[in-house]
């Protein structure tokens, strides 16, 4: 039954993703600026003939609807087209950038959970205690620090002066690693390559901290608030009355209900992280989706931006579905 519902949800996702892509298609073309002018500007070939030829080859001289037809026809054949600027398939460019972004997203999520969950539990269970005060201080700090500033400070202190951690890239340049998924940490695990794993993890720490810090605040606040609410519900009183230890009450009963809003909010935030973060990726020389998209928007590389937006749409739909599935597991009363 659940499987059928999941398939149903996935089927509904397709028209939704298509809608997203259509909006992106028309919005991009409504932006001022001409891709041909960008490609040819300052190159020695900016003659009227070259402009006309290039425009014809990119189908930019044709009506919008016929451009849309080319795009959709390609899409049906499973192709996102070619990048105007880099001349390689859009799927190749996204395929190279997406694993880096996913790895960083998981790194940030791990960091946020590692800090946010203990803080949230302490804050929610012992409201207004010392732990809660420290937690509140940390979350306000975490949500107020801009990522670019935090990233640079981390680099300057931990990389440039203390030299504890590397400042840039996904993995040490001297490390040999066979690419399987394109995610260095996962690849190192899959191929059992310990030096590569250590190098990849060390590279992952600083950007994960920079990217995950705002999420620490989100997890802490939501978990703390929902745990605090749960604490006064009758079933907790019952659990206490039947003689369970405080620890058992917290872990088995209270936390289980408090997870639900936390998972929902964290899932949605994770969806945003998977879109790539231009600022963190730029500061840490992380070759992810955020940088690719911003660069493509500036150069009016329509196919790449369209492809990336399609990926965004699908990612969000999948994450939402995943969150719903997890929530049904946590609370059997909820159905898909």
């Amino acid at each position, binding site marked *: 039954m659940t499987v059928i519902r999941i398939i149903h949800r996935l089927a509904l996702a397709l028209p939704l993703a298509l809608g997203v892509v259509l909006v992106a298609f028309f919005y991009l073309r409504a932006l001022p600026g001409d891709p041909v002018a*960008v490609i040819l*500007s300052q190159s020695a*070939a900016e003659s009227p003939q070259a402009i006309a030829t290039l425009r014809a080859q990119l189908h930019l001289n044709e009506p919008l609807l016929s451009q849309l037809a080319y795009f959709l026809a390609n899409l049906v054949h499973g192709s996102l087209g070619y990048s105007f600027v880099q001349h*390689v398939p859009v799927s190749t460019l996204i395929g*190279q950038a997406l694993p880096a972004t996913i790895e960083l997203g998981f790194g940030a999520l791990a960091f946020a959970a590692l800090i946010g969950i203990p803080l949230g539990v302490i804050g929610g269970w012992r409201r207004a205690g010392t732990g809660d005060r420290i937690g509140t201080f940390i979350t306000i700090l975490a949500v107020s620090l801009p990522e670019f500033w935090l990233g*640079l400070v981390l680099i300057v202190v931990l990389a440039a002066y203390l030299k504890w951690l590397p400042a840039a890239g*996904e993995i040490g340049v*001297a490390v040999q690693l066979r690419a399987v998924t394109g995610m260095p940490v996962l690849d190192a695990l899959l191929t059992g390559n310990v030096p590569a794993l250590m190098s990849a993890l060390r590279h992952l720490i600083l950007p994960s901290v920079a990217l995950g810090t705002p999420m620490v605040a989100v997890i802490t606040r939501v978990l703390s608030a929902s745990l605090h609410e749960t604490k006064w519900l009758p079933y907790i009183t019952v659990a206490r009355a039947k003689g369970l230890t405080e620890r058992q009450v917290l872990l088995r009963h209270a936390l289980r209900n408090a997870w639900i809003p936390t998972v929902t909010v964290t899932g949605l935030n994770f969806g945003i992280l998977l879109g790539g973060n231009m600022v963190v990726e730029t500061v840490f*020389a992380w070759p992810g989706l955020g940088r690719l998209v911003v660069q493509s928007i500036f150069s009016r590389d329509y196919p790449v931006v369209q492809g990336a937006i399609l990926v965004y749409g699908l990612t969000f739909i999948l994450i939402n579905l995943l969150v719903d599935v997890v929530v049904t597991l946590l609370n059997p009363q909820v159905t898909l």
Partner: protein
Amino acid sequence: MHDSRFTWWRLVLGAFVPSAVLVAAALTGTLTSATSAAGLRPLSAVLDTTADSSSLAQAIAMQLDQFGLHVSVREWQSTDLLTQEQSGSRQMYMSDWGSAYFDPYDLAAPKLITGGRGNRSFFSNKTFDALMTQAATSNNTQLRRADYFKAQQILYSQVPWVFGYYLDNVQVASSRLKGWQPYEDGMEPMARVTPNGSSTVTVALPTNAILTLDPTASYSDRSTEEVIQNVFDSLVTLSPGRTILPQLATRWAVSQGGLTYTFTLRRNVTFQNGQPFTSQDVVFTADRLLGLGAFQGHPSTRAALIDPPGDALTVGAEGPYTVVFHFQKPFPLFLYGLVHMEIVPHVYYQKVGAAQFALHPIGTGPFSYQSGSYSGPIVLARNSRYWGGAPKIAKLVFLPEPDPESTMAGLLSGSIDVGTDLPFDQLSQFENNPQFQVKEIPGTRAYFIELNNKLPPFNNRNVRLAFNYAIDWNTILAAIYGNHAHRMATAFLPSGFGFDPHIHPYPYDPAKAVELLHAAGYEAHVP
């Protein structure tokens, strides 16, 4: 419903009447002030810029404000501004233009010849056009220099722009790289570097991503070219003093009249996959650049590097080690363009196709491509069979690192060995540090304020000249770039051919500026 009586015409009246009154008041005010001051009108203009030059534009506008001129800065996205400039609707804009030939052929010519592809000032001068065209198609060095000298005089007197400056290209490297020279067009200095310590060398590229690894693709990007020139060789290359040196060609002969170039190729050179390099590869490469449908159905934008538009260049092989290029019209800068025609292997290229080649390139250069994507670290390995001798560096890594702060941190922590485009105000910490070597080469990009010569107020030469006198470039540039910015007297770079050192940039002269503005009928006062 009482509110429904609030109909659209009330809204229009409410908005329109007060604004109409304001506009009328403003107009009357302008008229009276214009008639009062001896027929002088106030001058107002918008200075357009992109985010990169925004602070410089603000500084310039503030200086002009002190003359009583009303110059406001408008910041644009580069693509939008480009379209606007080309439509001729803007007045003045912060501009820059890079040159690849060390010759006015691709700087002053396209920017200022009537209808030139980069001419966004709409400057038009028949004599200038004739001089530049003659210089571009002549093989007579004396005549070319004389033409360029005359052309500079015309620019100096007609002042199509507010002439600006060029910047030093400053590069910082770890002092463990012995024999390091900054990267210049045509140079692959890493082949000659001896690294102390680790034989892996990491070069930070100031970009989000390189554009391609196929030298015949359409691109115009310095970082991309830097990677490509380490993997590939051209027929000729440039010395740091900008003389043409042999690379894959050992010698060449130019026919009388300069129409035919015959190259003798280096023997016993192999590509990194072991295949021999022959004249077929040169012909194939040239065909890919020149063919109309060669590059995914359109001509490569790099075609014009070796073949100026309108010419019919033919390329042919005479045996395995001789290649002949034949022009219809003389093109004196051909060898400088050839520096950028990196040779691809025709057998491998045709086997894998353009898309695969751009991801897994093979050349004859000192380093071979090993792994990496355009935006990630691009790892090159030593080509131990390199005809010029195996490089000392075993692994050369190019790391696209768009954030200069991170590049500096990488240099300081030792994870990056070479960095460029660092903030000028941060260079001193490297200059005074024995762990680093800082070297500079003259930049080949000119920066200036382009004026629309067809629209008021800049259709008046006096106004254009006045603006050249009214900006105190030396103070502004010293504050931003230290001693790394140099004024230009016209649109000619000192590093390029035909530069006339006797023409000096217009000095900062407020009195003269005011006098010229008054002559043009505009209000102004000495600050």
